[in-house]
């Protein structure tokens, strides 16, 4: 790559603040079929990006600059594995439901970019604050997508909450009787359709406010 085209492709990413976020959510779409699944994977993603960013920031003076991407990938994998193990030990019901999908948090593009490019520039406190902001956005997106798919696909909101915390039983909303819903919403392809609709809605709003679209 020559200098000019490198800058151009870099701008294509940096001018699209939501692009790594949206790309990062994609591997998880297969599993985010309910509000609870979205919350579970969102909390796991939040923990991974915050803990990983703090570790990267703490080691920033020890590691050569050229090790950044490799460090980010390694730490994303390590912290994700640690979170998976903790889920298996302390949130067993959630692990039963999400176990297959949890390792995929490690390849979340938004998290890897944060660990490779943002966190190494900051002291641990600032890195944690920045990471928490990204983690919250991932959590909200996953919860919205999961909630929407659960509502369309099986007509409930927060189904299965009693397995995670018995005290919360009864919070589940059943909106449609019977067991049949809009199956496409639950299939992986339906997840991509909904994600596309969400992005479209955000861009439409941004353009009405006179701003550039968030994701192009």
């Amino acid at each position: 790559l020559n200098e000019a085209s490198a800058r151009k492709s870099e701008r294509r990413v940096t001018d699209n603040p939501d692009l790594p976020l949206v790309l990062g959510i994609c591997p998880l779409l297969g599993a985010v079929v309910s509000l609870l699944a979205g919350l579970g994977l969102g909390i796991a993603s939040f923990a991974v990006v915050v803990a990983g960013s703090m570790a990267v920031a703490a080691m920033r003076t020890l590691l050569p600059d050229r090790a950044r991407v490799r460090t980010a990938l390694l730490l994303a994998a390590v912290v994700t594995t640690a979170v998976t193990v903790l889920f298996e030990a302390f949130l067993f019901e959630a692990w039963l439901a999400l176990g297959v999908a949890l390792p995929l948090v490690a390849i979340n593009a938004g998290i890897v970019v944060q660990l490779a490019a943002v966190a190494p520039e900051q002291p641990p406190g600032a890195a944690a604050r920045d990471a928490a902001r990204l983690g919250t956005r991932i959590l909200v997106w996953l919860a919205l997508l999961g909630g929407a798919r659960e509502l369309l696909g099986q007509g409930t909101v927060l189904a299965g909450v009693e397995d995670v915390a018995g005290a919360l039983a009864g919070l589940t909303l059943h909106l449609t009787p019977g067991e049949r819903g809009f199956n496409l919403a639950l299939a992986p392809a339906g997840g991509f359709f909904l994600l596309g609709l969400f992005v479209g809605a955000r861009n439409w709003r941004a353009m009405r406010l006179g701003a550039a679209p968030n994701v192009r």
Partner: protein
Amino acid sequence: MATDDPPQRPDTAPRRGRLTLALLALAGLSALVLGVLVEGTRQRVIGNEAAQVGRTLGDLLPEGSYDNEPDADRILVVSPELLGSDQPLPVYRARSGGEPTAAVITAVARQGYVGPIRLLVALSKDGRVIAVRVVDHRETPGLGDRIDAAKSSWTRIFSGRSLDDPDPSRWSVVREGGAFDQISGATVTSRAVVTAVRDAALYFQQHRAEIFDRPPE
């Protein structure tokens, strides 16, 4: 990534050495941290899994039909033809006053739509199916996943059936001339489960004495 990276310089041996060393140290440290974490939580995870098995067995077996602890009264059996796996699979025994009342066989349906489906099949000592529970699967959400007791009551169609009712040759789905309703839109999944339950019943019929007489492991 970052715009202020220094322009690429050719690799020199000392720089490469430092990079390798740093990454090696980091990888070693990571392995150590994960090792400690896995070791530290192992007992808890084993407890979680045992509790899960105990809960499922409690759901499958009628209350009062046994007075032992079936999750502890367990043997491991291997039968690639009838149980669908070349790995040892657990069989749990239920007894009342020392007399066998039922067995819960772990079976794997290999011909699922997406992948293998892991089942627990509870059989009374006369070979009648008490209940069937899917414990692990990756079938399509909204269609094949209705084999899951949490999603639909479909697996109840096996309760009370045996190899005399219907005859083994009719242990297939209605669409193929069998006696069991398939889940609409998920014939492949349904067929895989029906076949696996039949084979588990066959395994039980052929190994009944061994299943109840072997000491637990």
